[in-house]
C-alpha cells in the first residue's frame, strides 16, 4: 500500500498542552499537506509544506518536514477543546500521479477542557 502512516493513532491531552502528531510516507514528494476533520465532516486544509522547506508556521500550528527520513510532524501548541478532531497528512503522488493525494492513516486528537 502506498498509504502513509501516522502516529499516534489516538492522542488525549488536557487543554493548554501541546499535541504532536507524526506522519511517515514512502515515496519522494513535492508537497505534504495537513488536514483536520471534525467528526466525519469535510476536511479543512491546515497547511502545505513544500519538499524544499523544513519548517512552517501558521498560528498555533508548526509543521516540520524531513525528506531524508520521509517524515513530517504537526505540532499544535496551547491546545483547545475545539482542536478535538482527526488530523491527516497527505502527500502528492510520484511520477505522473503528482496531482493525486495519498493520505495517512490519521490521528484522533481529544482535548479535554
Amino acid at each position: 500500500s502506498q498509504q502513509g502512516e501516522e502516529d499516534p493513532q489516538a492522542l488525549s491531552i488536557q487543554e493548554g498542552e501541546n499535541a504532536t502528531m507524526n506522519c511517515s510516507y514512502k515515496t519522494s514528494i513535492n508537497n505534504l499537506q495537513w488536514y483536520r476533520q471534525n467528526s466525519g465532516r469535510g476536511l479543512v486544509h491546515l497547511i502545505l509544506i513544500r519538499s524544499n522547506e523544513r519548517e512552517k508556521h501558521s498560528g498555533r500550528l508548526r509543521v516540520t518536514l524531513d525528506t531524508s527520513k520521509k517524515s513530517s510532524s504537526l505540532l499544535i501548541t496551547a491546545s483547545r477543546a475545539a482542536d478535538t478532531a482527526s488530523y491527516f497528512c497527505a502527500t502528492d503522488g510520484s511520477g505522473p500521479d503528482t496531482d493525486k493525494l495519498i493520505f495517512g492513516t490519521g490521528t484522533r486528537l481529544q482535548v479535554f477542557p
Partner: protein
Amino acid sequence: SAVISQKPSRDICQRGTSLTIQCQVDSQVTMMFWYRQQPGQSLTLIATANQGSEATYESGFVIDKFPISRPNLTFSTLTVSNMSPEDSSIYLCSVRHDRIGTQYFGPGTRLTVL
C-alpha cells in the same frame, strides 16, 4: 482558496438503488477528485475527473459502479450504482489549486445503505 459545496449532505438509501452526488466549485478548476472514506478509515481516491475527457479510475474502482460526469470546469457528479451496505461511506470531492498545489475538499456526503 476554493469554496466547494456538495449535495446531498447525507442520505439513507436502499440496497440496489443508485445515488448521484453533486459537487460545485466557486471557480474554474482543471482537476477535480472524488474520494471515499469508509467508517473509521482514511481517505481513498476513487477517480480523477477532468473536463472534456473520461474520468481516470484508481485500482479497485470501476466506471460501471462509480460513473462520473464533468460537464464543465465548476461542476462534477459521482453516482454510486447498485448500492450495497459496503458502500456506506463519506464521499468527498476535492479540487486542486493549480498554481500552488493545495487541494481543497467539499463538506462530504454521508451515505448509509440499508
